[in-house]
């Protein structure tokens, strides 16, 4: 079955988008999995890495996806040529965008539409928003087209993040080893806990764990990491991998970077080795679990 990984934590700047990018490119470039990526963050940074995003003429500062390459104005009379994941909340059709990376397709963000979904407060509507992504990703069309789906989320615990968690089979919590980040971890663990109450054995929500990110060789980071590893129960969810703070992780994102992906660097490059090892760990957890399950079910 298609696995769905969500990168989430309600604090910003922790590495959700970075980790979504790395996982996406690892899956598509290295593993050659058929990969779908979804951007649930109105800031649309994840989308902007793979397709042209334009400023929304109607809402200042908002971003909308560029016209879809398959769009033909004289044939498609019902469609305005743009498509985003937010369409699922409006009963509109969703058309994934191809990217320059083979095997990698994107459902981009739409700032204003996502913000509207995030701002929902009425209970009946809220329940629909919470379940909508799950319903969409359960469609046989979607399941059959991809091996893996990777979702980036906004820095919040709101409806969009909850929707992503409800749709997920696996969660990754990227976090810096700093005070507010640990509080962010707490918030995410609570969402995971609440969701796990509702899951069946055949459809569990698996917390792969906390991925320590932007780690530097300073006492604060070491001691917070040690602190997490000492906690009862929590220690099982601290990934045995660490991502250091390295300029290359930011530099590779600029438009004319060469190469374009960490996984196109020479095989022995330290940054490539480091992130490849983290991605490998995550993907082994994601797929080995599935195997165990299918064996035990037979």
């Amino acid at each position, binding site marked *: 079955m298609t696995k769905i990984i969500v990168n989430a934590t309600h604090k910003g700047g922790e590495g959700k988008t970075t980790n979504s990018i790395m996982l996406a490119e690892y899956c598509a470039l290295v593993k050659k999995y058929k990969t779908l990526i979804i951007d649930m963050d109105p800031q649309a940074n994840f989308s902007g890495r793979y397709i042209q995003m334009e400023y929304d003429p109607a809402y200042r500062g908002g971003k909308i996806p560029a016209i879809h390459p398959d769009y033909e104005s004289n044939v498609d009379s019902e469609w305005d040529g743009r498509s985003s994941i937010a369409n699922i909340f409006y009963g509109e059709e969703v058309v994934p965008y191809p990217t320059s990376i083979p095997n990698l397709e994107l459902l981009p963000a739409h700032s204003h539409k996502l913000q509207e979904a995030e701002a929902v*407060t009425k*209970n009946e509507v*809220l329940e629909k928003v919470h379940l909508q992504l799950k319903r969409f990703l359960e469609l046989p069309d979607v399941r059959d087209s991809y091996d893996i789906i990777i979702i980036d989320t906004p820095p919040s615990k709101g409806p969009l993040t909850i929707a992503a968690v409800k749709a997920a089979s696996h969660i990754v919590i990227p976090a810096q080893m700093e005070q507010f980040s*640990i*509080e962010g*971890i*707490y918030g995410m*663990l*609570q969402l*995971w*806990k*609440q969701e*796990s*109450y*509702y*899951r*069946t*054995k055949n459809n*569990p929500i698996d*917390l792969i764990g906390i991925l320590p990110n932007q780690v530097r060789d300073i*006492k*604060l980071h070491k*001691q*917070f990491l040690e*602190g*997490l590893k000492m*906690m*009862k*129960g*929590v220690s*099982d*969810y601290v990934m045995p991998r660490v991502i250091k703070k390295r300029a290359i992780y930011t530099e590779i994102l600029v438009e004319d970077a060469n190469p374009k992906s960490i996984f196109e660097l020479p095989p022995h490059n330290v940054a490539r080795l480091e992130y490849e090892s983290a991605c490998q760990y995550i993907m082994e957890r994601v797929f080995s679990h599935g195997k165990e399950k299918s064996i035990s079910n037979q």
Partner: protein
Amino acid sequence: MAKKKVFQISNALTEGLEETVSAAHNYSGELRVEAISLKKIELDPENPRDMALTFEDLTQGIDKADPDYQRKIEERTSLQTLANSVREQGIINPIMVYKQGDKYRLIAGERRTLASILAGKTEVQAKILDSKPDELKISLLQWMENVERKDLSLWERLMNLEKILSSYATHKKVTLQDITPTDIGRLLGCSLPHAMNFTAVLQADATLKSHIRVNKIKNLEKAALIAGIQSDDVKQSAIEACMEGATLKKLKSISTQDKAKKTLAVSPALPITRGRQMTLVNLGTTKKIPVARLIIDSVLQHEKVTHLRKHFSDLNWADYKAINHAFKQLLLTLEKLEV
């Protein structure tokens, strides 16, 4: 030399993280909803029923010779509206069952189950428990479901909690007062500070509670802060400020007036509201003799006890009993010395 800095994750945060993970493990799947075959559902013979109509009456027709014939016909007619709605949109609220062999025993939702059969369905959405729940379990399940619902008022949450705690007390054969915030945290899977706030508000006086009941005070943290204020005047002004929308920070600054006053007043005996009162220090135990030796040796460095050193010079450091005895003596002597 500058003091060495140690960066630690706070105790409250640590406890919160640990409890969250343990609640996720303990209660995973507790609220799951699955479609189960209506054929597999049976009534719980221990539960009294309001209705005479049985599952078989619906599948096989009601027997004319049945002494309850007339009553059953009426019951079936009264189910028709619900059955129509089930036919159109399924049941909105899942029924609740527990596993009994390869069958499911009904806990809640008799009418919904009967209406589903009447609607010609083969399956029904059900919340499935692994075993027959007691009252505590049922209120806990309600809690787990309700904490996610944002439209629940503070008062409703408190009432829910009170129900859970009294079931828990009965279950454990303890009184309500014996339940500590740690117990509450474990029960609900919430953090200790959160549990302490609940404890404080549950024990609040009638005035504060009446404001919570009418939803004039809605925030748990604020309510807990006010509940902790001793002086009536200060408490009253905190309540007023809270209802006017004061922030937690503002309320904290009001409550410090309370603390300032308390040191001035001839302090009356303070009621113990949180945890057990401690009047002794337990120095703990260790299996490691070198550790015990290090502690004793360090104490003996103190100038006031130099005269005791000779008692330890011929202590057998391989004998746990002898070390225990010697340490107790040392403590007694230190207490007398009033160091």
